[in-house]
């Protein structure tokens, strides 16, 4: 019951950016960018902390969705919707491929292999410059040829809510509960007769599907992508989102995205010191709030409520 309330209130908060259509301009643009990373953040939250898979290749699956969409539309003149579907499926297949390739390895090695893939992928994009545009990137009208900015922004908000809602729903199902069990104790899950290989495979497929869809939404929103956008730091930022926000709570990636994507914007005035402050904030959060900002705020709130309840009510 309590979890359901948290899920619903998180989804409600995610709907609030719809109101920015009334304001428009810079705030709407930034909110759109935040939502795009929020999708990736929830994908990481699901795979890393719910399915327990140490995967660092989010920029790869995201960019496959993005490049699949833009290349098929611009270079091969496919219809936009078909390109989006193909890009998303390519990313899903990549997710499955990464799992099959690394399932023999264990622990941090899986992370390293996927991290190397995240370093490799921008180099592949650069090497395929005649098709992908390399560092100069590719531009396209994408969805803006069919609708205006506000309509697409609203679609983006609803897609975000739907994807996050799907993950929340998934965690309440038998499949989700099994993934949590595997994440907590893989050997125990095998011992009780669960086919952990099958469950992990599905988890990677889901990751690839939604990360790719997020990438397709990303490239349509910005109308541009280059190898610079998908450099290894993109994967690092996505990885940081649930970690900083709090992996144990459902609203953790929401807080994490605000920290990772909005904080650099706040430090724009002191651009020279941006990286130092950024790095220090991450270190301080990781050291002093190891559960992430979300659970720490929740604890603080509970203490505050308890303290208020203890204060005797003054009587005349």
């Amino acid at each position, binding site marked *: 019951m309590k979890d359901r309330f948290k899920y619903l209130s998180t989804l409600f908060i995610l709907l609030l950016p719809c109101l920015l259509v009334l304001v428009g301009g810079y705030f709407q643009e930034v909110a759109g960018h935040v939502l795009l990373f929020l999708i990736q953040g929830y994908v990481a939250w699901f795979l890393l902390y719910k399915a327990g898979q*140490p995967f660092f290749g989010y920029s790869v699956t995201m960019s496959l969705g993005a490049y699949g969409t833009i290349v098929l539309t611009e270079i091969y003149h496919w219809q936009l919707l078909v390109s989006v579907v193909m890009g998303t499926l390519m990313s899903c297949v990549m997710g499955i491929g990464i799992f099959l*390739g*690394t399932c*023999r*390895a*264990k*622990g*941090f*090695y899986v*992370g*390293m*292999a996927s991290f*190397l*893939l995240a*370093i*490799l992928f921008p*180099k*592949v994009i*650069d*090497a395929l*410059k005649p098709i992908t545009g*390399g560092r100069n990137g590719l531009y396209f009208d994408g969805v803006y040829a069919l609708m205006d900015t506000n309509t697409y922004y609203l679609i983006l908000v609803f897609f975000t809510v739907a994807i996050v809602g799907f993950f929340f729903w998934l965690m309440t199902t038998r499949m989700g509960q099994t993934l949590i069990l595997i994440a907590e104790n893989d050997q125990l899950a095998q011992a009780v007769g669960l086919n952990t290989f099958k469950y992990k495979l599905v988890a990677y497929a889901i990751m690839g599907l939604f990360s790719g869809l997020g990438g397709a939404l990303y490239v349509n929103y910005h109308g541009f992508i280059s190898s610079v956008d998908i450099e*290894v730091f993109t994967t*690092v930022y996505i*990885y*940081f989102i649930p*970690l900083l926000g709090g992996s144990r709570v459902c609203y953790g990636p929401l807080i994490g995205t605000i920290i990772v994507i909005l904080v650099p914007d706040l430090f724009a005035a002191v651009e*020279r*010191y*941006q*990286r*130092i*402050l*950024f*790095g*220090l904030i*991450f*270190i301080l959060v*990781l*050291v002093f709030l190891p559960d992430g900002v979300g659970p720490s705020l929740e604890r603080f709130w509970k203490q505050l409520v308890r303290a208020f309840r203890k204060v005797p009510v003054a009587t005349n």
Partner: protein
Amino acid sequence: MLLTGFINGIIMGGVLSLPVLGVAVVYGITGIPNFAIGLIGVFGGFVTWYFLSYNMVLSLFVGVAVCFPIGYLLQNILLTPISNKGGDATLFFVITISLGFVFEGLVKVIFPRPSISIALPYMGSFSVGGVSVEIIKLFALIFALSTLTVIRLLEIHTRPGQSWQATSRNLKLAKLVGVNTNRVFAVAHGIGCSLACIGAIFWGSLYNLNVLSGWELGFLGFIIAVVGGIGNIWGGMLSAMLMGMILSYSGYFLDGNWQSVILYVIVILVLIVSPKGILGSERSL
């Protein structure tokens, strides 16, 4: 072409092995994958460049000397306490990447130029089998090989070296027999950062040095170390040589971008087929 490729590969392997040294020493002894080590090395490289106009030998000393306490203090203040609280490789990955951001920012704030070239005196070049080899590149190779030999000899024949070995093989037992493991970790990290700085100085004299080279050196050092068998310094050296060969021979058929692609594909394949690396490692990720 075969001989030219071989000589170029060996020399390139020597240059590539320099960033590996720092990573291998730090990971081999502390078990911590430090992704910021390249940035710390580049920070030291920039310090060297800053003092280069005063005195060359002094500047090299200052650069390396600055990196040692950085590594020592980082280990003592930040990494050991996290390790004692049960921090795993994933947490260290995140922490050290964040540290990398801090050092990247420091280089940008402190030094006026975004990209530098460390002008060491020109040592000339010589020809082997029709291949022209710059002496400084050969010097990098000799330096890397002799550093490895010195570290190995220290490990075998000196008491602190034996403490390093004991700590890296069995931490609990080392503590039990009275080894100050925290100090061993801190010194190892200091040495690792100093080696990374020497790597950055060589890199800066052969190519350009900028903030991004710090990440490049760190990642490159790490992947080469992983392929060799992370923590195994001879494995790291062998891996660097192989990478040098791959880069050298693939250069005849492919352009620069595809060369990197081939390199990373091979690394990923090695990692998938043999997760413990070519020579294996007592430590694993």
